[in-house]
Structures are given as structure tokens and as C-alpha cells.
């Protein structure tokens, strides 16, 4: 399945922000010396681009102060430095106050590739979605990065916006328009036996590829791109899962606490069904390699999704299905 040319979401976002800054006086772009904006001319918005240096805790506090004074700050750093280094500042200064700070976190998941485990972020969704008031967004391609970021700017309260690093392929052009807080149904089959719920570029593409493979032998599949991890579109989830024999989740994140956990929590309460989480094995990945390759090493790819669905449909014991797809290599 092929989509538009691969593009890096973070560069698409950067160019969008630069344009918005020129016309929207509320916006302040805070940078922690990421280098992402080196070539950008903010024009009339130049005074509202501020590089506060390599100090993420401080940057979160600065953003909160700006927001309390009426601005809409857009904070820029890597996912791991935002979430695990500056977490208390996010919790106290931004989540507790419910201020409209937009945290744009690049290098989400394994996107940092060969930069190594210090730069990987496989825990950020779990952490961010536990914080009250926080909206958590993971666009699946460059196009929806644009639409979701524009929507995120007008969302009340804080937003965590997870981006990648390099170019990732686009979703098929036929996908319906994306709306913040609403699951994007990227493949729909009435009363599908299998529902796949995914977020992030490679997991959503892997889900679509897995669906095509399952469909080839007659299995009906619905695929939801759950780009807004919080608040979770529970209605769409329940509607899709209601007639399914299995819900498979796929994400670029450790199994604990991420999208799969969110889906399992919701369905266990509202529409019990077998859920299998395809997620990164619970270990670090101290090896060179590109994002997609590392993700496969971690246990997230088309084949794992297909195997999880087939395992449940064929009556394989639950422990066997759940254990196999997360086996480390």
C-alpha cells in the first residue's frame, strides 16, 4: 500500500509554525537549542522566537509563565527530554495550572534511531496520559501533522504533540480527514472480526498492511488511527470493537501504559473483548539502526499484528498469543 512521498513531520510542523507565527501574535516559539529552527526566518514574529538554551526544566516553567500572561507558547525539545527530564515542571507548572502550553516533542519512540537509548522515548505516552488536563496527540503522517497541530493550537489546556525525526511515509490518500479527538477510520468493514487500533506513522502503516494480509484470506478488519491518545475516542473504539473477536493494538511505545493500555482499560470496562497489544519489548535498544528497523527488532511490525489476530481467531491459548509477539530477539 503506497501513499504520498515520505516527509519528515517535524519539518512540516516547523514550516507551518513559522508561517503561523507571522500572523498570530499569541504564539511564542520556545526552543531548547534543538537546531530545528536554524534556517527559519520568522519575519515579523522574530521577537517571539526565543532560544532559552539546553535547559528543559527551565523552558517548561518559562512556557507556563508566558501562558499565564496570555501567550500561547510552543515548546520544542525531544520527547525524552520533555517527558522524563522535565516531567515535574510539566506536571506542576503546566498540567496542574491547565495552561495552554503546546509541547512539541520530536524524536518520539525510536525515531532517533542510532542516537541510542538516551534519545529513544518509549514511555512518553504512558506518562503524559496519566496527567490530568493533558491532551496527547501522535500524528501518523506529515499531512495530519498540519491539521492536528492547527487544531491543537485552539485546544483549551496543555497539549503533548509527539513527532518523529526523519521522513516517514504518508497514509493512503483515501483516508478520511483527520479531527483532533476523533479516531480516524483508515479502513472500515462492517462488523469486522478484527479491529486494529494504532498510532504513529509506522504502526498505522503496519496495521493497514496487516489488514490487507488478513483480508486476503477472508478475515474482515477495521483499522483505527488513534492519533489522539488522550482524550481517547471511546465511542469509536466501542463501535468498532463491538462485533470483533479481537482488538489488536500497535504502537511505537513500551507495552506498559501506552495506547494499548488505554484501549484495554476502556474496553475492559465498556465492551469486553480479547485485546492483544503489539508494542515494543520491555527492554532498551542499544544498537544502531533506523527507526523502522529498530521498531521491527522491538517487536512491532505487520507480521506481529497479523500473528496476534490469527492467534486469537484460531483459538490459540491467550498466554501464547500475548507472549509471542513481544518476544525479544
Amino acid at each position, binding site marked *: 500500500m503506497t501513499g504520498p512521498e515520505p516527509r519528515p513531520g517535524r519539518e512540516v510542523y516547523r514550516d507551518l509554525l513559522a508561517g503561523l507565527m507571522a500572523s498570530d501574535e499569541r504564539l511564542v516559539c520556545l526552543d531548547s537549542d534543538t537546531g530545528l529552527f536554524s534556517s527559519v526566518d520568522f519575519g515579523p514574529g522574530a521577537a517571539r522566537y*526565543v532560544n532559552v538554551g539546553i535547559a528543559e526544566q527551565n523552558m517548561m516553567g518559562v512556557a*507556563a509563565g508566558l501562558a499565564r500572561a496570555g501567550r500561547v507558547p510552543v515548546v520544542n525539545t525531544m520527547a525524552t527530554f520533555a517527558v522524563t527530564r522535565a516531567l515535574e*515542571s510539566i506536571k506542576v507548572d503546566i498540567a496542574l495550572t491547565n495552561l495552554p502550553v503546546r509541547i512539541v516533542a520530536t524524536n518520539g519512540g525510536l525515531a532517533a534511531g542510532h542516537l541510542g537509548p538516551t534519545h529513544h522515548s518509549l514511555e512518553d505516552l504512558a506518562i503524559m496520559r496519566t496527567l490530568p488536563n493533558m491532551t496527547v496527540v501522535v500524528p501518523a503522517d506529515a499531512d495530519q501533522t498540519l491539521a492536528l497541530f492547527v487544531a491543537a493550537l485552539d485546544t483549551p489546556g496543555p497539549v503533548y504533540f509527539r513527532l518523529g525525526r526523519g521522513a516517514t511515509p504518508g497514509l493512503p490518500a483515501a483516508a478520511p480527514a483527520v479531527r483532533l479527538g476523533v479516531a480516524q477510520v483508515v479502513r472500515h468493514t462492517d462488523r469486522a472480526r478484527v479491529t486494529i487500533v494504532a498510532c504513529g506513522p509506522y504502526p498505522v502503516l503496519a496495521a493497514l498492511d496487516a489488514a490487507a494480509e488478513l483480508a486476503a484470506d477472508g478475515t474482515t478488519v477495521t483499522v483505527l488511527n488513534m492519533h489522539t491518545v488522550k482524550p481517547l475516542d471511546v465511542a469509536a473504539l466501542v463501535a468498532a470493537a463491538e462485533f470483533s473477536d479481537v482488538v489488536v493494538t500497535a504502537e511505537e511505545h513500551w507495552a506498559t501504559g501506552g495506547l494499548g493500555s488505554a484501549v484495554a482499560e476502556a474496553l475492559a470496562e465498556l465492551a469486553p473483548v480479547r485485546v492483544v497489544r503489539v508494542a515494543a519489548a520491555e527492554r532498551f535498544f542499544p544498537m544502531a539502526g533506523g527507526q523502522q528497523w529498530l521498531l521491527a527488532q522491538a517487536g512491532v511490525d505487520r507480521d506481529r499484528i497479523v500473528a496476534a489476530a490469527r492467534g486469537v481467531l484460531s483459538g490459540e491459548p491467550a498466554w501464547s498469543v500475548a507472549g509471542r509477539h513481544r518476544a525479544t530477539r
Partner: protein
Amino acid sequence: MMPMARAVGADADMAAAAQRVREHIVRMCGGPDGGHLGGSMSLVEILLTLYRRVLRVDPARPDALDRDILLLSKGHGGIGLYAVLAEQGFLPVARLAEYGRPGSSLMAHPTMAVPGVEMPSGALGHGLPLGVGFALAARLDGSDRRCFVVLGDGELQEGSVWEAAMAAAGLGLDGLTAVVDRNGLQITGETESVVGLEPLADRWRAFGWAVDEVDGHDTAALEGAFRRPRLGRPRVVIATTVKGKGLPSVENQARSHYVRFSERQQRRTLALLRAGGGRANR
């Protein structure tokens, strides 16, 4: 600008307010779970000088866009802040009696639910980064409004304080003033025996800040430091204070950090405080 011509101790009004604030603090330490006595007593003159003589704030218009900002970064001075806010009309003095009672928004550490509190505090090291944000916003707005951040001295061990100090100087934010409540003590003892902060003034200077060192219980000296002209860089006022100020039995003792008075202790302490009279303000 020179300190305004007002003799130390001549402002009977200020002295009386300081006395009332200290009595409020002692009463709150008699609440169900006690309170942070020592570090609240030490910052009374700092907060009163700011609210009564320096800050452009109006309890009737707490969200006015041109207001000055006061952040109590040492959130454990919460009961001191509540007492001052009550004296200044941000909340009724009678409300102080609800401090620490179940369901009350008057907790040991302030939140924005308390009128006049700009941002929550309690976790240390957050105020100065926030202050950089407020000062930056004022500059972007072309406003002369100022931001004051009151820090504890033990709090200066938090790395985020120095991240913000570096950023504020780098950005030339002269609308930002840090005030260090230098009472010399933290929970386990003297700051200098824990990790040591000295030479404190030199450290701030090395970070590019203008530095004043004053007696933190001398309201005229504090006012003078707070009113100095803006010189293109942030300013810190290191205010030497006495932890537990006004209560000789606990002054300069780390054990005054957190106290729960029984009813009898509270009565005795209030009597001692009143007997000390205006002494607390000298």
C-alpha cells in the same frame, strides 16, 4: 533611585501589619496539621514591603493585565503569604481560620484557587523559570510590569534555579527581581553545613545578575532595593533574615521549620509574640 525617605521603624502601620501577620501565622500553626512556621516568619517583611509599597496589584482587579507578579517560589511560606494576602484584602482575614481544614483551598503549599496566588508552588525550583516567562511576556507586550520571585535559600540547591538564572541574564530581563529569603537554615540544619551556598552574592554576580544584600527585616532597606532602576539585567535581593523571627524560643533554629502548636502552646506563643511587640519589625 534612593530608598524613599522614611525612617526605619517609623512606619507604625507597617510594624502593626507585620505583627498581625505573625499572629495569623502562629494561629495557622495551631490548625489541624500545623504549618511551616520558621520560613513564614522570616519572610513577613519581604512580602509586606512588596505588597504595601512596591507591587502594582489591586485585590479588586486580580487579573488586571498590567499587574505586577509576585511568585512565592518557596511554597512552604504559604501561610505567610496567606496572612499577607488577607491583610492586603485579597481574601477575608476570617478565612485564615479554615487553613488546613478538610476541603479548604488554604493548604500548606499555595495553589491558584487562593485569591492573589498567581501560580502553584511547593515543589522547589519552579518560581524562577516561571518568573523568566512572566518577564519575557511583559517585554513582548511592551509593558513595564515587573515580576518578583521569592526564593528560599535552601531552594537554591535546585538546579532549575540556575538554569533560569542563566536564561534571565542571557535575555537581559531587567523586569525580573529574585528575592532570596536568606534565613540560613533548611530542614536538617544550616545551609552552609548541608552543601553550602556561599559566596552567594558572587555566584549571582557570576551569573550576570545585579545584586543587593539587605537586612530582610528592614522594610526601608528592602524597599530601596526593590525600587532600584532597571539596568538591562535581572536583579537579586539577598535578604538576610531570621528563621522563626519574632519568637525568641525558636529563632534561628531549624526545628522551627514545621510546627504544630497545641491550643495551650498557641496561646502562650501568641502572648510571647505580643509581649515582643514591635521588636519583630526591627
